[in-house]
């Protein structure tokens, strides 16, 4: 159980001039600018849930995660992980959480992977039995047995990420924080990692907080998402309702004869947006407003479509739309 209440993190940075003379002035000036990386957010994650924590680069995702796992101390507000504040009771909380930062490995670089695990076994005081059981489970779901005796520095990115994931799960944490665990990985490894997270959640009821830019991760794993932008929460709720936020949006991609063009095509309704993409026509509409059947008829009869593909709006498109709207609003205010 994680409870986040009015959590805020402000970084103070000196206002810098440019170039050498600017830097020299910075040394003497006492001016600081405040960067509100996380700005008064509140949410709770119940046990056993997998939450997707998404947002653009610099939205404050990693900063929140770092406060939840005890690396950073909040400027104000609070985080409670199973009732404890991670920055005050760091050691107790650390025993119950596992953390992976996709960008930084936490394994020792030049020793064989299995030696890293042995040190972690001592650090987390894992019993022989538990260790054997966990290694069995992780060896299977993450497929790490093959490269256990290799030094971490010789592992490929995909192998290293699986190793990092295994290291974070070794002490059977109740909560797992994964900060971009699939970054830079190929489709197959991503798939493997998703399966492992799923398996872990199912087998041990582990709570997972996951940040990612890969919407497939979100769709495969998370029942709930929290969308963050400029340090504030834009959306917090089930994946489904976010998808339906703009109605039941559908996209029809049509292969049409050369004479059919977007500008000259007959109009069905102002609610159906027609555009051209690489010689194809793309129709975007809300199926709750304009029935799908009607649009299909229109496509074949009026646009003389030869072939068509129907797609639901992807979660990525929704997030993109929301962020674009935000940006436009922001621009208007300024």
């Amino acid at each position, binding site marked *: 159980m994680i409870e986040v209440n009015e959590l805020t993190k402000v*970084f103070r940075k000196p206002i810098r001039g440019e170039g050498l003379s600017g830097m020299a002035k910075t040394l003497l000036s006492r001016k600081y600018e405040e960067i509100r990386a996380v700005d008064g957010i509140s949410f709770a994650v119940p046990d056993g849930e997998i939450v997707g924590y998404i947002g653009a680069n*610099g939205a404050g995702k*990693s900063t929140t995660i*770092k406060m939840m*796992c*005890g*690396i*950073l*101390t909040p400027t104000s507000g609070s985080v409670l992980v199973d009732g404890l504040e991670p*920055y005050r009771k*760091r*050691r*107790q909380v*650390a*025993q119950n*959480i596992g*953390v992976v*930062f996709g*960008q*930084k490995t*936490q394994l*020792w*670089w*030049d*020793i*064989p992977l299995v*030696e*890293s695990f*042995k*040190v972690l076994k*001592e*650090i*987390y*005081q894992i019993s022989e039995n538990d260790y054997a059981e966990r290694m069995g489970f992780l060896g299977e779901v993450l497929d790490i047995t093959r490269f256990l005796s290799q*030094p971490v520095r010789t592992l490929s990115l995909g192998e290293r990420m699986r190793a990092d994931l295994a290291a974070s799960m070794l002490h059977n944490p109740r909560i797992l924080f994964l*900060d*971009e665990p699939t970054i830079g990985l190929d489709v197959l490894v991503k798939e493997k990692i998703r399966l492992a997270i799923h398996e872990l959640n199912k087998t041990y009821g582990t709570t997972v907080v996951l940040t990612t830019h890969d919407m497939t991760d979100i769709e495969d794993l998370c029942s709930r998402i929290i969308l963050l932008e400029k340090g504030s929460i834009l959306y917090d709720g089930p994946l489904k309702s976010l998808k339906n936020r703009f109605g039941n949006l559908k996209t029809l991609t049509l292969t049409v004869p050369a004479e059919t063009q977007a500008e000259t095509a007959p109009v069905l309704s102002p609610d159906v947006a027609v555009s051209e993409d690489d010689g194809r026509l793309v129709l975007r509409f809300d199926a709750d407003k304009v029935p799908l059947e009607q649009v299909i008829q229109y496509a074949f009869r009026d646009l003389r479509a030869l072939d068509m593909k129907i797609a639901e709006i992807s979660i990525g498109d929704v997030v993109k739309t929301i962020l674009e709207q935000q940006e436009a609003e922001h621009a208007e205010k300024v």
Partner: protein
Amino acid sequence: MRYVHLYFTCIKRSIISRLEYKKDTIVALFSFFFSNFCSLAAIYFILQAIPALAGYSLYEVGFFYGFSMLPIALDHLFSDELWLVAYRRVQEGDMDMHFLRPVPVLFQVFAETFQPEGFGELILGAALIAVCASNLTVTVSFASIFVLCIGAIFGAVIITSLKVAMAALAFIFKRSGPLLQVIYNFSSYAKYPLAIYPAVIRALLIFVIPFGLFISLPVDTLLHGAHNPWLLSLAIVGCAAVFFALGVWVWTLCERRYESTGS
């Protein structure tokens, strides 16, 4: 007890890391012997050039030099990681992993590296002491040996504590290596008898950055019976306790200011 066990597990890890690169290990071994040989030669030439210093004979100065190596070597064995913390690791946000583990961060820093090079300095210092002592006529008493042991061991505690406090400042300034370097360099002043310095520096080396307290004063006590060995021992242990407490206090205070880096 748990931490003793954990310390040895981590140290084993550090040594495995060292041995992982075969050629590197051979180069390290070679350079270790070479650099120690060089410092021995340097000491010899320095002592040759200054046959007597402020009334101290060649072998007495050599004894000072040899003894000053002991606490420095002991500190070197256990706390070398602090240099990396001060110069690089905080600035690069590389301390994250330590904050995620259910063990004190400072403990993990100590357990991160063990520098066997320290043994070489220890042997070298002891050898220099032995050679010089055999050429001196001093009345050795249990008390004077005792105060030397106290000076070496608790002197190491004082050096390490100073390093901890200076390295901890990196959490606030992002980089505190140069500061740590300045403080650490005071140890080189303490390699010579305090008598050669003006009163101000002497006071500084005894009361503020007390390298003189645990290096020069015990040696003076052995060679010339300058101080009461029991009282001096007490002063050194007391000073070490204060510095140790201060070092850990500064570290815990600064640790909370860690900002990591963006990712």
